[in-house]
Structures are given as structure tokens and as C-alpha cells.
């Protein structure tokens, strides 16, 4: 790709005291692409996305947004330049309606803040339209989020991030903790967002199948470093599972497993 990546990071290092969580990460995401960020627990995925979303500040290295150096001192800074993070807990409130969740903290109102009257009709319409665009027809925007399925909630959180200006969508394990069918719904949502062409998606997952289904580009992390990267085409035939496990040959693990199964030697 010759276009400027929406986000590029160079030599990103993050230390927590004596512990080095990230040790020189290079990484870029392009509009209209799904970039899968893979790696085992503790590989540094969460640290990386927390830097991108402004929760942590890097110890060294540089983040570029649209080719320009960017410094985020808070999550607010990151969301102002269009980085929207959908965390696993989704930041949704179960007892509140779909519309009230959609506009939580960013309500449409007429009159003096914070006592301006809510424009419920408009907010209901926008919520309904944005949800339709992304593939879910909620008949009643007044229904509580508690009654929605996990997949629908995920979709609501994604639609909300996009509506409020996310150009880079960071999805933190959006398919974990969901049933099979709902996982597919979320992947469908991701593909719908991808099809818009103007949004870059960083897709964090543990699931090899999901990554292969949805992603255009892959980055594998292990122990705070990039151990592999490439486009879907480049990685064809490579042992993705091997990279996901942090570079430990899966065959070795399989041998160990069989050894344990065959006979207790304790």
C-alpha cells in the first residue's frame, strides 16, 4: 500500500519499572483493512492497545496518526483524533435503553448543559439508523441493553464508536465469551465496517479461525516483540498457530501432551 497508514508506530517501548512490556514494536494500520493482532497472554497486546488508546504513555518510540507524530496524554486525546476502543466489558449499561447507552455522555439536547432537554426522538432515530447500517434491526430502541445478546451488544458498542467519529477501531477480543453463532455475527459486523473503506480495524483475538476469516494483515507478538507479520497472502501456508503460541512449535506441545496422556510417571 502506498497510502499513508492511519496509524503507524515505530520502536514502541513500554517499561513498568524493571519489567519491559513492549520492546520496540513497529506496527501500522490502513483504512479499510482489518489488522489482526495476535499473541498469547502476556505477549503485550493489551499494553500496545492501551498506548494507542491513550491509557498508557510509551517509554520510548513514536506513534504517528495520518503520518504526523501524536502524543496522547489521556484516552480523550486518542478519541479526539479518531481512535475508538471497544473493550471487552463494552462500557454498556444493562439497565439502560439502547438509545440511552448509545448516547451515554454525548446526549443530544436542547437548552443549557447539563439540564438541557433530551431530544429522544432524534436519538432514537439515529440509534436505529446506525444499528441498521451495521446489520442489526432493533425494533425498539427503548429496550434495555440487558435484553440483548452478547453479539448485539458488541455490535452496539462498535456502532457507537463509529458514530462518534472513530477512524481506527480497536476491538479487544470481541469474539471471546460468545457462542458460535454470535461470534459469526460479530465477524459479519467487522466485515461490514471494513467494507466502508474509511475505517481501520485492529482486531485482537486468540482465535486463529476468526483471524483468518476476517483479517487482511497480521502481526504476531510474543514477549513484547513482533515475531511475525504479513498480509493474508504472504502468510498463506505458514503455521499461524505456531506464531500465535509465541513461536513455540506446536508439534513440541503436541508431543508433550501425548506424553502426559500416555502414562502417569508421578
Amino acid at each position, binding site marked *: 500500500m502506498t497510502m499513508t497508514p492511519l496509524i503507524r508506530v515505530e520502536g514502541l517501548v513500554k517499561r513498568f519499572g524493571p519489567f519491559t512490556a513492549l520492546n520496540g514494536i513497529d506496527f501500522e494500520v490502513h483504512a479499510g483493512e482489518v489488522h489482526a493482532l495476535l499473541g498469547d497472554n502476556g505477549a503485550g497486546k493489551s499494553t500496545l492497545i492501551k498506548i494507542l488508546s491513550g491509557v498508557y504513555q510509551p517509554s520510548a518510540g513514536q506513534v504517528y496518526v495520518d503520518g504526523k507524530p501524536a502524543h496522547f496524554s489521556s484516552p480523550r486525546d486518542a478519541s479526539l483524533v479518531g481512535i475508538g476502543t471497544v473493550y471487552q466489558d463494552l*462500557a454498556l*449499561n444493562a*439497565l439502560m435503553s439502547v438509545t440511552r447507552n448509545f448516547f*451515554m455522555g454525548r446526549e443530544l439536547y436542547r437548552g443549557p448543559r447539563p439540564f438541557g432537554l433530551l431530544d429522544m426522538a432524534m436519538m432514537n432515530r439515529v440509534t436505529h439508523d446506525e444499528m441498521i447500517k451495521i446489520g442489526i434491526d432493533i*425494533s425498539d430502541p427503548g429496550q*434495555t441493553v440487558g435484553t440483548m445478546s452478547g453479539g448485539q451488544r458488541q455490535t452496539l458498542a462498535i456502532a457507537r464508536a463509529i458514530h462518534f467519529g472513530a477512524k481506527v477501531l480497536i476491538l479487544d477480543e470481541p469474539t471471546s465469551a460468545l457462542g458460535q453463532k454470535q461470534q459469526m455475527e460479530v465477524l459479519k459486523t467487522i466485515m461490514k465496517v471494513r467494507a466502508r473503506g474509511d475505517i481501520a480495524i485492529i482486531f485482537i483475538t486468540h482465535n486463529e479461525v476468526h483471524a483468518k476469516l476476517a483479517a487482511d494483515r497480521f502481526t504476531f507478538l510474543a514477549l513484547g516483540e513482533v515475531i511475525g507479520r504479513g498480509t493474508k497472502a504472504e502468510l498463506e501456508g505458514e503455521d499461524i498457530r505456531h506464531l500465535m503460541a509465541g513461536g513455540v512449535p506446536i508439534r513440541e506441545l503436541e508431543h508433550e501432551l501425548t506424553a502426559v496422556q500416555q502414562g502417569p510417571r508421578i
Partner: protein
Amino acid sequence: MSAAGTTRTEADRLRKGGRLRVVLRRPETGAFVVMVAVVAAIAIASDGKAFNALGLKNNLSIIAQYGIIATGASLLMIAGEFDLSIGSMIGFTGMAMAMMLKWGLPFGLGPATPFTAFALTLVMALFLGWLIGSIVVRSGLSSFIVTLSFLFFLRGLTEVSFRMINQSTQVSGLPDFKQESWFAYIFGGQSFGWLYDLWFALGGNLNRSGGQWVTGLDARVVWWIIIAGAAWLVLSRTQAGNWIYATGDNRDSARANGVPVDKVRISLFMLTALCSTIFAACQVFDTNSADAAKGNLKELEAIAIAVVGGTLMTGGFGTVIGVVFGAVTFGLVANAVFFIPAIDGSYYRVFVGVVLFVAVFLNEGVRKRITGGL
């Protein structure tokens, strides 16, 4: 074959149902049913006396008292916090106003007028509310324990100040300010006189000699209507209302979406202090007296009314209309002994215990219904 199920979508699993189901999901439905039952029972048992001209005035007087503090308490509960200092705050602000009116303003500022006594007391109360809220927000301690400490602290401070300055824990025989001062009148005076005049003109509201019997309701009824009306508007129709629900439902996710959860909670602690001050002002200017023991247990009654009105103990859910129903129910039952002399007044507490217990179960049921049984 799996074709049979393919046309169903996720949304079909949520039973829509008719109007009845929508009504059952509302937090105030249970409170409404209880209120209607209590109104009917008391009307029959008192032979209609509870709702004649005088009965209505007396009942609404106590209902309004409950309503004023329960409105503040319920908004705070919806935001996920408790205020156990309401009762002590009533005692404290009542004492402050009465002592200023009797002994003059502090710091040698001369004699107090009803307005200056109220204004200075309100400033103190709002400061205390802000202080309690800030401690809760900053320390991360549960509001239960922080406000419990203020319950003891304020009550003790009230008694100590009374004895030090006044040599007695009561002030009585203050001048009847409401005769002279319009400001005292709006708290201790009368309201809805026109309604009672109209009632008389239409041939009701007669005393034994055929003249007009009751001249109007207590002024606090108007305060209750103002406070409950404003609270209803803010909670259900404004941005601040959405923030209150969001803060109580899940504070972290509200904060992540940019809701100023700390400001919301501090403001609501100030609101309960405001409600307590208005409660006390109505009492002081109505009776021209104050007592260090005023407001005792009112914090727990306010919470009970909020719960009976459908407010969830865990926050995030409730309505002002439900609290209005709850206040009517509690006020009527608390006053029932005056209209039905045969019963023992302590049945009030028996009733409160039972109704509260049932309400908690009903609320849990509503919570399960609206969250799809999860």
C-alpha cells in the same frame, strides 16, 4: 434438518407482549398498586374521615414531608449511593435556623431575619453535602459508612451546640414569623387556599356552624410538588438524568463514555442536603420551634420510600413517580392512627417492615424482567 429455525432472529427471542407487559416492566407499578390498596383501606376504615377537608390537609402535610426527603434520597440511590445523614441534617439545619432566629446571626452580624437564617443555613448544608460527596468520591469508601459517620457527627454536633448556646436541646416560642415575613410564609404558611375556598363555595368544607372549615393546605405541599416535579423532569427528560442513571448502573462504563460521575454524585449529595434543609425550614416556620431530636430515623424512612417506589438498592433504576406513590403510601399509613383510633400506632412500623420486604422482592423481579432474566 435445521431449516426450521433459520428464519428466526435473535430479536425474536425477546417476548414483546402487549401493554400489560410494558406496564409490568415499569418500576412504579408495584408502588401504584400498594398505594391504591392503602388509600382504599384507609378510606373505608376511617369512614372517609381521612379524606375530608381536614383529613386531606393533615395527610398531605406528612406525605409532603416524606416526599421532599425521599425524592432527594431516591435520585442519589439511582446514582448508586446512600445518604444516611438526612435525618441528622434535618436536626442540624432546624437547629441552626431556630438558634439564629432566637440568638442572632453568628460572628456578631446582628439579629437574623427568616431569610438570612435560612440562607446561611442552606450554605452550611450545601457545604456539608459537598463535603460528604467529595469524601465519598475521593476516598472510594462506601457512602454507607461515610454518611453513617455523618449521621452520628451531625446529631452530636446539633445537641452539643444547642446545649452550649441555648442551655436546652429545644427552642420554642419563637415569634410567629409567617405572619410578618412572606419568606417565612412560603415555608410555614398555607397553600392551595383557593382550592379550599372553591370547595367551600361549592358547598363542602363546612364546619359545624356552617362556615368555612379548613382554609388551605400546608405550604410544604407546594415544596413537595416543586421538588418532585423538577426531579422528574431532570431524571427522565434531561442530559443530567441520563448521567444519573448511567452513574448508578455501571460507574466505570459511564466514566469511560465521558459521564462526569464524580460531579453527578457530589451534586446529588448536595441535593439531599437541600431537601433536608427545606424539610427543616417548613417545620421551623410552621411550628416556630426546633428540637435537637428532629428528623430522627428520617434517612431510613426516605430510603424505604424510595425502595417501595421501585428504586433499586443497587442503583441505575427507579422513577420519581414511583417515589411519589411511595410517599403517599407511607404518609397515609403513618397518619392512619389519627383517623382510625382503634388501631395501635406502632402498626405503622409493622406495615413498613412488611411492605419494604415485599418491595425488594418485586423490584428484583422487575430488574430480572428488564434485563431478560439475566
